[in-house]
């Protein structure tokens, strides 16, 4: 059974930033997103791929992203840019590297091997930089669990809804119905591997209510965060994924009761008439962690 990952960053929101836009790159951390994704892939035109790679490399060296998790999305290994991206970005060891359009176990093993070879060349360990996989095709959805559990350094899966809808030849619709099964399958794989899972972008930037509704829905499905394409979306999604005051009070009550009962050697007890055992306590601790509440201060 895989161990529960220790989180150092919250992952409610990940702001996508085109890797060839210096103004946006240098301001990426100020908007309150938990993470930034410096993109060398779909946000960058073909004739800008090299300059994006150079710019992002400089940014990683010189800009402090202050408390944000920094992820770089490289181009797929089978494109003319993918290998150069890995060779330049892996030695800079961002917090994570995101691999787009992963479809098969063979593919992920090939890419991770390459990453490790580059790390070996630079005498770097294999467990520092995390790997995120993006599932953006029907085949990827079918293979997601095998892909996700391939390596302990894979600590998040993300769904690429736009590409998936295209791959499935779905008629354009905003209600998410076509990709709903894929969402659920990907979440299940992530939960089985005990890793995080990001939902896809919400493209209608003007529609704040629609964004909130979608964020509420995917939270219920089990997603742990969402991709963000405009800073205006961050506050809404952060709010959805942040525990409410009621949730926090309830969690604090559970944890305090747990500590009390633990001291008396009691493992299962009741709070407000409901049974509390280890998994409930674990969930409560997670709520407090998401709310930035130090359990010691309770």
């Amino acid at each position, binding site marked *: 059974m895989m161990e529960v990952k220790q989180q150092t960053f919250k992952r409610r929101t990940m702001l996508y930033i085109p890797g060839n836009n210096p*103004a946006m790159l*240098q*301001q990426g951390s*100020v*908007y*309150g997103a938990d993470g930034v994704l410096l993109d060398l892939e779909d946000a960058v035109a073909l004739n800008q791929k090299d300059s994006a790679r150079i710019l992002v490399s400089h940014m990683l060296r010189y*800009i402090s992203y202050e408390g944000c998790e920094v992820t770089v999305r490289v181009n797929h290994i089978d494109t003319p840019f993918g290998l150069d991206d890995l060779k330049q970005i892996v030695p800079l060891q961002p917090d994570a590297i995101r691999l787009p359009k992963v479809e098969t176990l063979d593919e992920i093993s090939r890419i991770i091997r390459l990453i490790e070879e580059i790390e070996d060349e630079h005498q770097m360990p294999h467990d520092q930089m995390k790997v995120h996989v993006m599932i953006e095709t029907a085949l990827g959805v079918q293979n997601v669990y095998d892909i996700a559990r391939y390596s302990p350094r894979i600590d998040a899966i993300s769904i690429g809804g736009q590409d998936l809808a295209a791959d499935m030849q779905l008629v354009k619709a905003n209600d998410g119905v076509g990709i709903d099964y894929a969402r659920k399958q990907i979440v299940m794989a992530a939960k089985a591997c005990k890793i995080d899972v990001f939902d896809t972008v919400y493209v209608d930037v003007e529609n704040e209510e629609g964004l909130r509704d979608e964020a509420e829905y995917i939270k219920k499905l089990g997603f742990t965060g969402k991709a963000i394409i*405009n*800073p*205006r979306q961050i*506050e809404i999604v952060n709010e959805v994924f942040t525990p409410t005051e009621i949730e926090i009070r309830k969690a604090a009550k559970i944890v305090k009761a747990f500590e009390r009962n633990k001291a008396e050697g009691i493992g299962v007890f009741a709070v407000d008439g409901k049974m509390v055992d280890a998994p409930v306590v674990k969930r409560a601790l997670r709520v407090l962690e998401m709310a930035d509440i130090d359990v010691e201060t309770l």
Partner: protein
Amino acid sequence: MKNILQINIPEELDGIGKLEPFQGAFAKLKKGWMEEKTVPPPNKAKLPHSNKMCATLKEAIVKTKPYDGMTISFHHHLRGGDNLLVESIKILAELGIKDITLASSSLTSAHDPILPYLKDGTITQVYSSGIRGELGKAIAEGVLPKPCVIHSHGGRVRSVHTGRIKIDLAILAASASDIEGNATGSHGPSAFGSMGYAAIDSWYSKQVIVVTDNIVDYPCVPQSVTQNYIDFVVNVDSIGDPSKIAGGTTRITKAPMDLQIARLAAKVIEHSGELKEGFSFQVGAGGASLAVAKYIRKIMKQRTIKGSFILGGVTSYGVDMLNEGLFRSIFDVQSFDAAVSSSLMDNPYHIEIPAGLYANPFNCGCMTNKLDIVVLGALEIDTDFNVNVITGSEGYVRGASGGHSDTASGANLTVVVCPSFRGRIPIVKDKVHTIVTPGESIDVLVTERGICVNPNRPDLKNNLEERGIQVKDITDLAREVESITGKAKSIEVTDRVVGVVEYRDGSIIDVIHQVKM
């Protein structure tokens, strides 16, 4: 001699006279009166049933008997759509008039076409609240033989009262006027709202021409300027470009950075202790400053707070807040869009005020004295919280003093909102290029990278920190910015002073040196 901010000020300057060094925002006000004597308004006379109408602007100007060395004034309520100022200067130049002092309440890039007249001796001095575009560049490069004088809106009124600015001819655009010169900006095809900056010109100028594209039946109502001050009236085809005078409605910015800063500023205001029942409020006309109003509006509704008045500088956003009952009244010295003009016409609690009531410190209490919260922008701010809103990163004049120092001195809470750097140019830095508003008037700076409270407001710092808002030392923020942008080269200037920045009390807070070319 040095002023209190340690800026070297010449004792006197050709073209201006003796200069007084700035000694603090309230140094002169504490006396309760102004040492400088005021001058009387002109004594005019007209025979009964005189005809003031002139067929053309040129005819009216000729009738005023213009002469070399005269001072001419305009208001800037037509904003980017003004062509009256340029037309008037062209006419004066054609008449061979030289050595004119131009004392428009402000200048924008719409006035760029008068640059040749700054070069050829037609105009030899400029008094203004703001100068932009090609004019600002040329003035910084030393095109004028006499230094320009930058003043605040309130300070301009003081200057006219004391005769520092002696207006010979005021040419005032109005969107509606009757044949006697009772005029307004609140209705008509070129409506622009309040004529707040024109009032002092109409009262004190030796001669006043009202120019309109909309003659209405006598009497024109309402009346921003009244017939007893008006010498001549001209009906022209158009006073300017209506689309650039007043847009439809002012929209809140969608720029993520501005919204982020505005959101943080609203949080600061909410927890400052100043956001309470009956508070008064002023924000800028756009960008992060106006966006703060969006968040404050939400908080006011959530906490059912009703404010006393909105002041300024008014946009349709302010009008919406008035109509929603969030504020009791608006005091309007300048209107920024078409929706504001109709509110001025229709709502008795939307009140037009002259610039002297708005911000002249030398009276029994201008409106800025009563202001609770103001949100202002900045081109630069230094680690002593001094603000530059007049010169840009190359040393050119490209902004306006406006109501910045006026409102900052009066408000209980002055919030400056700006990014910590723009592009690769630091905004928060050790020393600004030109000081317009002294740091003592600024309470808090809100940037995307940190909130900095003036050390002279420990109460505010406590309030914010108690409510979980992290406050950063401004010096640390300046260092952080420098670590991103690198240290900028100083702007190269000569010893020649091409402009003085007058504080609202008439003292000199800074000077503008000629940019080396």
